[in-house]
C-alpha cells in the first residue's frame, strides 16, 4: 500500500457509508411520488382528497385546485385525468418534461400556461423553467416532481 495515503476510517465502513448515503439521497428525492394515482372525479368526491406516496405519507390536494381543474374539463375528461400530474426532471436536459399519458394533461398544461403546446415525444411535453414556475404556482398540490438521472456513459 502507498505509504503517503491518508487513513480512511475503515475501508468497508466508508464504502458502505457512502453507498448508503448516495442511495438514501436518491430515495429521498423521489419519496413524494404517488403509489397509485387517482382520477379527478374520484378525488372531488372524497372528503379529504389525497393519494398515498411511496414513503407511506399522504399527498393532500387542495379543493380549490381540484375545482379549478374541474372547471377546465368536461365529465369524460375528469375521469381520465390522473392526479398528481408528474413533472420529470432529468439533469441531462434543459427544462422539465410533463408526463402526459392522455391529451387531458396537455390541455391542462396548455390552459395554465396560456399557450398551445405539443408533444416532444409521445406522452411527453417539454416546458422550460419560467413555464415550470408558472405551472407550479397555479397547481401546487396537483403536480409532483419526479427525478431521474440519465447517464450518457
Amino acid at each position, binding site marked *: 500500500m502507498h505509504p503517503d*495515503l491518508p487513513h480512511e476510517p475503515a475501508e468497508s465502513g466508508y464504502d458502505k457509508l457512502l453507498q448508503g448515503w448516495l442511495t438514501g439521497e*436518491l430515495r429521498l428525492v423521489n419519496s413524494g411520488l404517488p403509489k397509485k394515482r387517482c382520477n379527478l372525479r374520484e378525488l372531488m368526491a372524497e372528503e379529504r382528497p389525497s393519494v398515498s406516496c411511496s414513503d407511506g405519507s399522504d399527498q*393532500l390536494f387542495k379543493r380549490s385546485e381540484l375545482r379549478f381543474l374541474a372547471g377546465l374539463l368536461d365529465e369524460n375528461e375528469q375521469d381520465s385525468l390522473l392526479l398528481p400530474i408528474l413533472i420529470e*426532471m432529468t439533469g441531462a436536459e434543459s427544462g422539465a418534461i410533463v408526463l402526459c399519458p392522455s391529451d387531458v394533461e396537455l390541455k391542462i398544461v396548455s390552459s395554465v400556461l396560456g399557450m398551445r403546446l405539443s408533444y416532444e415525444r409521445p406522452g411527453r411535453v417539454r416546458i422550460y423553467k419560467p413555464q415550470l414556475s408558472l405551472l407550479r*404556482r397555479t397547481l401546487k398540490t396537483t403536480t409532483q416532481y419526479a*427525478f431521474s438521472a440519465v*447517464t450518457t456513459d
Partner: protein
Amino acid sequence: MAHLIKVRPTKIELVKLKRRLKLSQRVQKIVKDRLSILTMEFLQAARDTVKAKQRTMTAMTEAYKAMTVASGYHGYVALQKELVACEADISVTAGPRSVAGIRLPSLELNEPAGGLRGYNLTQTSSLVDSASDTSREALRAIIELAELQRGLELLGAEINRTKRITNALEYIVIPSLQVTIRFLTMKFEERDREEKARLKRVKVLLARKEG
C-alpha cells in the same frame, strides 16, 4: 481538497471505485437538479409570502374597520348578542404536500356549507354582512400566510442541506474518487511495465543459458 483514498491496489478495488464514481456523479446530477427546483420554489414562496402578508394586513384593516362601523351602527351589545349565536369553530383541512422530497404543510379553510352566516339577517344590516365577509377574507389570508411561512422555513433549511451535499460531492467525494482511480490506473500500468521488463530480462537470461 481531493485526497487519495486508502484502498488495496487491486483490480477489484478499481472496479469498485469506478462504480462508486458513477453512482456519485449520478447522485450529483439529481441533487443539483433538486437544488435548482428547491431554489425556484423558495423564491416563489418568498414572493407569495410578501403578497400574502400585504393581503393579510389589508384584510385585517378592512375587517376591523367594517366591524367598528357595524358596532357603531347597531351598538356593541346588540352586535355581540347577534354574533354570540353564530360563533362556530373554524375548520381547516391540513395535510402534507411533497416538494422534491420535503414535506410542506398544506392548509385550506373549509367554507361553511350553503354559505349561511348564522346570524339573523332580518335583525342586522348589510354592515354586519360586510364585516363578516371581510373577517372571513382576513381568516383566509392568515391561513395562507401560515402555510407559506412554514413552507419558506422548511425550504430554506432543505436548500442549506442540499447545498452542503452538492459541495461535498463536487469538491470532496468525486475528486477523491477520480484521483484514486487515476493513481490505481497508473500503478497498474507501472506494474505491467515492470512485468514486461522482468519477462524480457528472464528471456535474455534463458537465451544466454541455452547459448
